[in-house]
Each structure stands twice: as C-alpha cells, then as structure tokens.
C-alpha cells in the first residue's frame, strides 16, 4: 500500500486538521473531531447535516458552507459515523429552524442517523438518497445505494435552506430531487482502505466492474474493459431508463471521478455522455465534471443525471461557497 500518510490510525484526524486549516474561512472543526461545521451560522435557518464514512472526499465536508451544508459528520473510512457525532453536530448548528439530515441509503448510515434522529430533541427530518441504479439490492443495503447524486441534493436543498425554506418544504424538496436523480458507476481499479492495507478487490488487467459502488462494492457484473463511448452508453443508458425522461427534458449532468481518474479521461467521458444525451433528445443545461464523490484512489467514474425543473435549476444556480463547489460568491 502506497499512501501519503503517517499512520493508518491517524489519517482521518490529520486529514480533518488539514482540511480545516485550508478552509478556515468557511469551516470550523469540532475539537473532538465529531463534526465539521460552517463557520458562520444563520439564525433560524434549517440546519442541514450530512455525513457518512470518510474516503469519499470532497463529500461531505467539502460541501459545508453558504448554500449547502451546515455540518458534516465524518466516520472512519467507509464506516458510518456514530449517533453521538450527529447529536453533537445538531446541538452545535441547530439555531431554531430544526434539522434536516441527508443520509445515503446504507444500512449503517441509516441506523446511526436514525438513532440520532430519535434521540435529538429538536424538530428534524431525514432525506434518504438512493440514486444508484446499478443494483436494486446491494450487500448490506436495503434498496438502492446512495452515491454521487447526494451532492446534487445537498446543493439544491442547501440553496433552498439558505433562502429560508422551512423544514417540511426542504424534506419534500430533498425527496423530489432524489427521485429525479439517478447514477451509475464503473471501476477500473480497486481502492485501498488505509487500515486494511491492501486493495478491496482484485481485478484483471483488462477488466472493469460495471455498476460498482462507492466503497468498491460489487456492481452488476465484471466485464472486459471497453471504450469510453460504450461505457458512457451503458451508464447513461441505465440512468435515463431509470428516470424514463421525455425528449426535451433539461438535466444537470454530473460526470464524477472516483479519485484516481485523470481529468482528461473525465472530459472524454463527458463528451461521450453528451453524445448519448443528444441522441435521446435530453438537454444537459448544466454540466459538472470532476472528482466530487470518490472512493479513495479508485480509478473509474460515475454518471449522474438530475432531471431539473425551472425551480430546481434556479436553486442550483444560486450562490454557493464551499471548499469544493463555489460560484457567484
């Protein structure tokens, strides 16, 4: 295992310290490392709290800030945070508007967030993200997994929270964005969890894992590596089929790298995905290409399509200022 680390037991803590120092204008790190929070809170605004296992950076800490999250709870690598973390975060960033938890649909995350939600003595709701169309039921997930679409929900709901929408409206919006968002990914190499010391899975020199999860979990099938166009056709095709979009539909397209993929290849995939969308008469009105929801150093990418309406698109475009996503401010 080759990593720029000091010790497997201190990676997370040191990484959080580095993150907090680099973005001290936006975030504050809880001294107990339970959560990262937005530096400046807005009284009465609904507090958006997300979190999950680490190793998906910039998700979630990189999306804390104006127009997105108020706090994120980082678990160990690929391990859901504990309820204590969510409670500590909620007590710190809830300012009267209640709490909206944004949770990816893994049984670990679901159980830990649910326990926190039950213990929290403030108004709260939970939006569950399950955008991965690759496998209907994956290992330890009841139903579909939550993957890159999470950041789209965090962005749109974050903008609505920022303008002052209430808890019930945000919960409804979050569910609606989740429902109109679908993703699927492919891996060319495995990731290596630092403490595990070796790759999560073995793959032949010419193989790819089609429909892989963001923890390196198996997907639909292991097949021979094919061309960017073929891969884009399968990923985008599965996503469009799931959403059953009509011609002329406007979408946000996210071509997301898993951590070890050069930007050059992500733009090749963007071009390939655009061709698929064009053929289906779907209009990508916003395109985001980059490594936003990663699996450590895994090579590969996912394609996410979010069918936006005018209201969602306006929220998407609203000012945002986080470590990993920033515009108009």
């Amino acid at each position, binding site marked *: 295992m080759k990593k720029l680390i000091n010790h497997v037991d201190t990676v997370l803590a040191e990484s959080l310290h580095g993150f907090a120092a680099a973005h001290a204008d936006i975030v504050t790190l809880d001294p107990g490392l339970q959560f990262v929070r937005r530096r400046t809170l807005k009284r009465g605004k609904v507090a958006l709290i997300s979190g999950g*296992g680490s190793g998906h950076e910039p998700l979630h800490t990189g999306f804390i800030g104006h127009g997105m999250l108020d706090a994120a709870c980082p*678990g*160990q*690598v*690929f*391990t*859901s*945070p*504990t*309820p*204590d973390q969510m409670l500590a975060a909620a007590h710190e960033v809830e300012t009267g508007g209640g709490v909206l938890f944004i949770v990816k649909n*893994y*049984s*670990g995350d*679901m*159980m*830990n967030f*649910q*326990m926190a939600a039950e213990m929290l003595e403030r108004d709260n709701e939970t939006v569950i993200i399950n955008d991965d169309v690759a*496998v*209907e*039921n*994956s*290992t*330890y*997930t*009841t139903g579909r997994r939550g993957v890159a679409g999470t950041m789209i929900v965090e962005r749109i709901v974050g903008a609505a929270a920022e303008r002052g929408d209430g808890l019930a409206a945000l919960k409804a919006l979050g569910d609606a964005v989740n429902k109109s968002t679908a993703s699927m990914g492919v891996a060319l190499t495995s990731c290596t*969890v630092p*403490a*595990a010391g070796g790759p*999560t*899975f073995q793959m032949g020199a010419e193989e790819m894992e089609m429909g892989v*999860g963001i*923890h*390196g*979990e*198996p997907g*639909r099938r292991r097949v021979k590596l094919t061309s960017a166009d073929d891969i884009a056709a399968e990923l985008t095709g599965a996503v469009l089929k799931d959403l059953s979009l009509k011609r002329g539909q406007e979408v946000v397209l996210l071509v997301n790298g898993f951590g070890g993929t050069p930007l050059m290849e992500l733009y090749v995939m963007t071009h390939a995905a655009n061709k698929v969308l064009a053929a289906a008469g779907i209009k990508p009105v916003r395109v985001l290409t980059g490594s936003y929801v990663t699996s450590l150093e895994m090579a590969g990418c996912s394609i996410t399509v979010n069918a936006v309406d005018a209201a969602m698109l306006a929220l998407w475009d609203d000012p945002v200022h986080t470590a990993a996503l920033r515009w108009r401010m």
Partner: protein
Amino acid sequence: MIHDQLIRAATQILIDHVDELTALDQAIGDGDHGLNMRRGALAIQSKYDELAAQSLNDALKTMGMTCMSTIGGSSGPVFGTLLVTLGKELPAEPQAADLARALDASIKALTRLGKAEVGQKTLLDVLEPVRMLLTTSSEQGAALVARVRQCAFDSAEATAQMDATRGRSSFLGDRALGHVDPGSRSMALIIGAICDVLLAAR
C-alpha cells in the same frame, strides 16, 4: 467474577481475527468490518476496570453503549442494540431459558432497527438458530454449551449459501454465493469465545 473473563475472551477473539473479518467484508461488502469490530473491542477493553466492577446487566449495557458510540457502520448499532437489549432482558443469574427469551427480544429489536429479517444473510442468521437451540434442546450444562458453540459456527458458515436465491444481495446473484457474512462470523466468534470460557470454568 466470570463475566470479566467472558468480556476479555469475546473482545480478544475479534482483535485476533481482524484480517479474516476484513477479508470477508472485502468479498461482498466494503472491507471495514474487521476494523470496526476491533475498534469496538479495543474501546470495551479500555473500560475493563469499570466493567469488572459492574453487574452483568450493567456491563452489558455499558458495552452496548460503547459499541454504539465508537464503532459506527452497521456493526455499531447492531452489536450495540444486541448488548443493550440483553442487558435489559437478562436476569442477574441467567439460565438457558432466560437467554433464549432475551435473544428473542434482541432479534425483534434488531429487526425494528435495521429492517433485516432472519434469512437475509446477517448476524440474525446466527442469533436465531442459537435461540432455537436454547429453546428446544433437552441437553444442559457443558453438553448444551458445546452444542451452542457448534450451532453458532455452523450457522455462520451457512450464511455463505444465502445470497443466490433471495434477500438483500440478490442482485449479486452467484457472486455472493460461497461468501460467509462477516457480521455472522463475528457473532459466531464471540459466542464461541464465550462458550470456551464457560466450558473451561467447569
């Protein structure tokens, strides 16, 4: 007090098997199960003095809360809820029938929490056969303990056959077939370690 030894044995066995548990979770999951269990086991071991001074019931609750606040993942809430429920339901000096009842309550609590049911390749598939055995077996004492031990290991092994036909990994089809569920293996290791202490104490 024997529960000191039980705690020591049950946590140490997990630490000793961290690589095996990691490998099992890498095969069909995300590879963190070994580390999760080790983290929980170490957290419990660090409270060893406190636990030794507590009653069995309080020690179980303390361990459950420790799991919940240190492990994370699925294992944290699952083992946490299991231990807390056992701590609530067991009498101070539990017999086999008491344990069966407390396990029944635990299984129900886990299903409420995690929506998984018996037969879906989780540690419930170890807990339920053990509960059944305790309820129905005519044996007692060392013979029963030895049967429980065997039942736990066999049931964990049996989870390997659970994926292909139904349940939460059905889309993996053949690919999960042959792989033991990591949480079930942990559960069996814990039960096995407890049984070994009980057998040695006789």
